[in-house]
């Protein structure tokens, strides 16, 4: 028998470290060649690491959530082999991309931190307590409670308990029984009367004392860090304006009515993207990145619009590049493609980086007002709120108009309130007279 150490492979361009987001094996597991050992995450891309050899896992190099340097020990395997082989042969694993990440050949710096190893000296192969298992929900101790009754099952209680409950106006279906077969005792009734935990059955309210501990790892941790960083550094201020989208909606409906197979169906988003492109020509300070360590603002000629997208894993912001060079339908198709790629975990690193201004929309869930968090180091983000028909005072009477709010946030360190207001007013004007979006010169 010989020991093989599987190291964290080079998982992407310029990536020096990766976070372990999931173990696919545990100590004691027999693994086959090419079997996935772990999933590690780099900058928004998840990579699966397969085993280069067959063997038995005797140690894992890190806990879920820990960050490992490329080249650090990931897994230690016991493999069949001659005794004269090196005691601890080092084997490099080849990364397998899960959420696509560009392959890279650049050498990674060696690990300079040592990860504590958990060895499997006493762990039997069939140990059910997998070392990477998250903490189980905990119940509040001290109160004895029976399991909740199955649906439709009658509460079980002696006549004296039933009478006492009846006199007190208590429906025993609400009371949990701690006794044999779920029998409700006087004590159970006392606990219920004191307002303690109770309840059973699907119709009843249950005091749920479970606590689930979820490690904040991977994309969620990345989101958490970035959000906190944005809020901590940027001087957010919000600005909300309403937009009469009646004409825009008419135009959109007319364009969608003459559907063509090679054209995507239009939402409001591509129109807003076009309006932003048009507006930033006059307000270049909005399409910019602020490097607050170097005290430099970069204004961009190209408009790379980040589109905040909800994915099964969390918020992602794929980027529609060079929107200034895209027409309405091109922009719409690109936005749709990016959103789908992000949701399916197929978005590449390029597609997830490089935005210069961001649009966020919750669609029908848009609400009335939101206060978006800047996609740092950008200085502006525009949120779309819900479109609704509202009565508007026009020409001496109320008329039904399709109204929509734009909620935007700016980095007040760079953007003055006056400019922000004018920028949004410009977008409003464009959206309310949508033909002007498409008039050049």
């Amino acid at each position, binding site marked *: 028998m010989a020991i093989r150490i599987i190291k964290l492979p080079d998982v992407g361009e310029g990536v020096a470290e990766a976070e372990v987001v999931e173990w696919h094996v545990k100590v004691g597991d027999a693994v086959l060649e090419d079997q996935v050992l772990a999933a590690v995450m780099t900058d928004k891309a998840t990579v699966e690491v397969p085993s280069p050899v067959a063997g038995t896992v005797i140690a894992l190099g890190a806990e879920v959530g820990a960050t490992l340097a490329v080249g650090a020990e990931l897994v230690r395997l016991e493999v069949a082999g001659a005794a004269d082989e090196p005691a601890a042969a080092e084997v490099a694993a080849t990364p397998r991309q899960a959420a696509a990440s560009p392959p890279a050949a650049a050498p990674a710096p060696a690990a300079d931190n040592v990860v504590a190893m958990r060895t499997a000296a006493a762990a039997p192969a069939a140990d059910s307590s997998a070392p990477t298992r998250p903490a189980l929900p905990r119940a509040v101790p001290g109160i004895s409670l029976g399991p909740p009754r199955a649906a439709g099952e009658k509460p*079980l209680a*002696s*006549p004296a308990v039933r009478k006492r409950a*009846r*006199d007190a*106006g208590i429906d025993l279906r609400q009371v949990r029984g701690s*006794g*044999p*077969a779920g*029998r409700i005792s006087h004590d159970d009734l006392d606990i219920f009367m004191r307002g303690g935990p109770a309840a059973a059955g699907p119709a009843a309210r249950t005091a749920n004392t479970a606590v689930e501990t979820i490690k904040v790892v991977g994309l969620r941790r990345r989101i958490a860090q970035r959000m906190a960083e944005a809020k901590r550094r940027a001087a957010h201020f919000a600005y909300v304006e309403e937009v009469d989208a009646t004409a825009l909606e008419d135009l959109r409906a007319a364009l969608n009515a003459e559907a063509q197979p090679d054209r995507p169906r239009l939402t409001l988003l591509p129109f807003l993207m076009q309006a932003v492109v048009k507006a930033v020509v006059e307000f270049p300070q909005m399409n910019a990145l602020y490097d607050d360590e170097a005290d430099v603002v970069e204004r961009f000629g190209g408009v790379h619009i980040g589109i905040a997208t909800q994915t099964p894993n969390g918020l992602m912001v794929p980027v529609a590049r060079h929107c200034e060079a895209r027409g309405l339908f091109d922009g719409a198709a690109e936005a749709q493609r990016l959103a789908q790629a992000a949701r399916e975990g197929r978005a590449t690193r390029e597609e997830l980086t490089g935005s210069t201004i961001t649009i966020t929309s919750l669609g029908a869930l848009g609400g009335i007002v939101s206060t978006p968090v800047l996609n740092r180091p950008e200085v502006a983000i525009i949120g779309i709120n819900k479109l609704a028909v509202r009565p508007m005072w026009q020409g001496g009477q109320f008329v039904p108009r399709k109204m929509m709010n734009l909620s935007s946030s700016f980095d007040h360190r760079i953007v003055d309130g006056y400019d922000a207001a004018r920028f949004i007013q410009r977008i409003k004007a464009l959206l309310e007279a949508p033909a002007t979006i498409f008039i050049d010169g």
Partner: protein
Amino acid sequence: MREISVKVLVIGGGPGGYVTAIRAGQLGLDVMLVEENVLGGTCLNVGCIPSKALIHAADAYGHAMAQATSAPFGLRVERPTLDFTRTIEWKDGIVGKLKGGVTALLKRHNVKTVRGRAAMLDGKTCRVESDTGPQVIRAEHVVLATGSQPVALPSLPFGGRVISSTEALSLPSVPQRLAVVGAGYIGLELGTAYAKLGTQVTVIEAEDRILPAYDAELARPVARRLKALGIDVITGARAGGLSADGDALRVEQSGAAARNIAADYFLIAVGRRPRIAGVGLDQLDLTMNGAAVRIDERCATSMRNVWAIGDVTGEPMLAHRAMAQGAMVAEIIAGQRRVFDKVAIPAVCFTDPEVVTVGLSPDEARAAGHTVQTSLFPFQANGRALTLGADDGFVRVTARSDNHLVLGIAAVGAGVSELSAAFGLALEMGARLEDIAGTIHAHPTLGEAFHEASLRGLGEALHV
């Protein structure tokens, strides 16, 4: 016409009605009870009590006769004789004593009792044709406890030698031959009693076996005993009319020629129906449940503050059910929160051997969606049953397989009616097999069979 106002008017002085009135009186309510006939109702006068008296007398006579022909433990009796007139007097004496007790109890609890025929005018008003003239009673609450009456067969209207259970309890002499139509508990209790008194008894049943309301396993020991007593049981048969001379009953059996059963009396015991007509209940336009008054779990009818309890509300027509309902209704009227939340209503057949059921039968439990296990302990292995010379029968416990919660208990055997108390308590308390198994049952008693049946359900039976 005199007009009286009361808080609670109870119509019917049977076990349901008088218990309602007593409980209402205890709770300080102004209560009046109207009884058309005599206090105590069917149960006390022409049902439970007199039939048990007759059954006891018949048993004693049957035992004496048995000692005259054989002497299993050496007792010799020379030619016992029965003075049936004395038997009926003794029975009437018991009924009279209990009736006196009810009268005294009602009085002690300040219940005004009116004797007369009640007719509901509307949900609040009742006209009573009393001995002292008609009177109108207005009540805040009306409790209908009018009971039930025997069902007649169209081909055999009551009268003359066609009798109901009421007449069968007061025959002038022990008949030579008795034909009983209906092998339910009433027909079998009375048929068995008269068979023991020396009557040649024939029982005609439309279903294919006796006690069709009970499961076959429970009916089997009773069927064996009927045979041993020489009772002729004709199942799957329909009673036609009487022969021209009125001496014989025409019985049609599918697949067999019709035959005539000659008898002195023809006892019709095919069931009872709620007493609705004649007391103006048909005038009230109450929502009905078939032939019975529909009630909810508080015994409320479709009319506000009109309550109904007991047989008039349908099956199971049992005195103890009516009593429990009556006490509850009185408490509800007194402002207490109550619903009829009983787990089980015991049912007893005072046949030979007796049959007790409490809770669900195995089939009912399965139909209710439970996975069940049943365990049975035979009285052949019970010392007390052997010393009583009556070892036929068993105790059977039906429990949920998953948590051993007891869902139903049944027994058949001599004297098992007294076990109904233990059975009922176990079910109401929500006992599991372990609870019964963990209770010491006195030795030597029939109750040990209950203990052993529960142990057996746990795979721990000791004496089988």
